[in-house]
């Protein structure tokens, strides 16, 4: 095991890197568009940079519809991308199907949000795992042993008790473990976990998250952890990235981003999270949000900074110029895409 035990430890080898990743979903054309040249599209993801390293968890946080799942699917090559590049071990990869896709899938695996839906109700656990092993020729000589090893790895012991069950006979947490085991069947280097615990009960979430962390350490995996619960990002991830309306707005190591958020949106997000330590009734409607709490249309996203219509600190410049990544300086690697931190521009 060469993994780093500490989140602050130097980052490992880069496994997967997204550079300027962009995805626009075309919108069905209407009659009046027939005569215009421009095609409407949902700008689901724009210019996303992201690096996954061995033995590290990167959290991607953002509200619903901000494009988190799209990023994950792009990274899993389930969608063709509109622009940008995905590099696996520094090599640009575009796979569409067939053998190439399998080869890619063997190294990058995805876990879905809903453990109730991501297992086929008509197949047993054995079938799911056997397929995962066989597709990638990881079954070896002894299939049963491989299956047992897989289940043990996700702490479903004794394995025999689970192998011949159907998904509906398992609890949510157990199902999500099976889903993880299936992903591990490919023996991947990177795991893309799209809200892996949001559908689970509070009391069992922790178990799954701990399992993922444990795997990261033992198998030296690179994990992308997608969530809308910023508190769990703090707890679980080494690095946290915040997305708003298809764009990255802030990034840095988790503790810094959650404790000293720089971008107004991140601040809004953190202020909105329930806090048991706050006094009952001590809730002022957030003066931090100038809008009605709703995200903008992604078909015609706001110009400049996408958050400017809601931003309490918006400046005229915010509505015209697209903010670039700016170092905050309070901790290494902490950045925000916000003109507030543009020292040069402020002068």
């Amino acid at each position, binding site marked *: 095991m060469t993994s780093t035990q500490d989140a602050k430890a130097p980052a490992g080898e880069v496994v997967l890197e997204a550079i300027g990743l962009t995805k626009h979903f075309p919108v069905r054309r209407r009659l009046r568009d027939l005569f215009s040249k421009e095609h409407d599209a949902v700008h689901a993801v724009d210019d996303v940079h992201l690096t996954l390293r061995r033995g590290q968890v990167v959290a991607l946080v953002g509200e619903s519809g901000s494009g988190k799942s799209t990023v994950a699917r792009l990274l899993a090559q389930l969608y063709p991308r509109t622009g940008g590049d995905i590099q696996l071990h520094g090599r640009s990869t575009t796979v569409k199907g067939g053998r190439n896709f399998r080869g890619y899938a063997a190294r990058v695996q*995805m876990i879905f949000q809903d453990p109730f839906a991501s297992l*086929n*109700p*008509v197949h047993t656990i054995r079938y799911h795992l056997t397929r995962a092993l066989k597709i990638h020729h990881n079954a070896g000589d002894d299939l049963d042993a491989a299956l047992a090893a897989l289940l043990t790895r996700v702490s479903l012991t004794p394995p025999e008790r689970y192998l011949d069950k*159907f998904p*509906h006979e398992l609890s949510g947490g157990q199902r999500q473990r099976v889903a993880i085991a299936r992903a591990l069947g490919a023996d991947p280097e990177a795991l893309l976990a799209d809200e892996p615990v949001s559908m689970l009960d509070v009391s069992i979430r922790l178990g799954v998250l701990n399992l993922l962390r444990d795997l990261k350490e033992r198998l030296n995996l690179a994990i992308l952890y997608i969530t809308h619960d910023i508190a769990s990002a703090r707890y679980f991830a080494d690095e946290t990235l915040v997305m708003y309306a298809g764009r990255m707005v802030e990034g840095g190591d988790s503790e810094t981003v959650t404790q000293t958020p720089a971008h107004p949106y991140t601040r809004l997000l953190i202020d909105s999270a329930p806090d048991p330590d706050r006094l009952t009734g001590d809730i002022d409607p957030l003066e931090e949000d100038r809008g009605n709490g709703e995200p903008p249309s992604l078909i015609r996203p706001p110009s400049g900074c996408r958050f400017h219509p809601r931003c309490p600190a918006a400046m005229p410049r915010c509505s015209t110029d697209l903010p670039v990544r700016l170092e905050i300086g309070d901790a290494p690697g902490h950045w925000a895409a916000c003109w507030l931190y543009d020292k040069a521009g402020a002068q």
Partner: protein
Amino acid sequence: MTIPTSSIEQVIPGQGAMAQPSAKPAKAKRQRFLFVRNTKAATGLVVLGVYVLLAIIGPWIAPYDPSGRSNDLVQGPSAAHWFGTTHLGQDIFSQILVGTRSVMYVGFLAGLIATTLSVLIGVTAGYLGGKTDDSLSALTNVILVIPAIPLMIIITSVLNNASDTLIAVVIGLTSWSWNARVLRAQTLSLRRRDFVEASRASGETTWRIVIFELLPNLTAVIASGLVGTVIYAVLSEITLAFIGITSNDGWNWGTILFWAQGQQALGQHAWWWFVPAGLAIACLGTALSLINFGIDEFVSPRLRSAGKTKLKTAAGHTVRMRIGFTPVLENSAAPHTHARVISTPVMREAK
């Protein structure tokens, strides 16, 4: 003709609210028995079983040659001829028995053909989407628009000496479109389910996803479609036979009705010539419909006719279970379980 009345199908057109292959998925093995435990399905299966049995042994146990003439012309039911005789002295009971095979054969063969086609076209269209979907859907719609019975009449007359098999093929070829539409809609909704996406992400090939991931989840819909088309095929075959488009030789219930109508049996008050064949069709149809109800209820248990719906309250009133007004069986504040209050506290810290 009658539109197959499976609710699964009826539900489809309005996108959205459809009997999803249950969120609480088929409790595979145990539920397979549950299906048979459904009274409707069980009744239907038993009746169908009898028909299948008759289809197999009918020709052997028939007391007479169904075409054999005798001198008992147009005789009512008697000990010798249970269902009476025709204008040629043929035994109608034997004709019914012998005819069962053709009806069942055509019904099931046509059902199988139509179902296979509908699965191929519907699932492909639904899963692949895009241009494939557009063109397959267009094909489906065109077939749906063309009136089926006249089309069958035309096609059967193109093919001379239509044998049972040919008739079944023709019926099968003209009656897949409705099910294909249903299946396409179902596949569309399944395609977006995570487990399909997940097996794609884990590297499964497209055909494996379709065959091993999608199809098993469509079994109820397919089965219901099959049963629906069998009913439809049986009715179509009988209709064709009734208007004189029939196989070369051999009997089916439609042929019996054809002769009865040609000989104006009812004008001669020979009701026995008409009634048995009609009832045989109706019972077979009912049995198949019952099976379909069973499937519907199996897929979406809500549809099950509520088992026991009348309840006795503690006070002795009868109340009905209904939506919006939960019955109150007992209206007292007495606790049900008796929790104990321990007088001497047992204090012990866990390890």
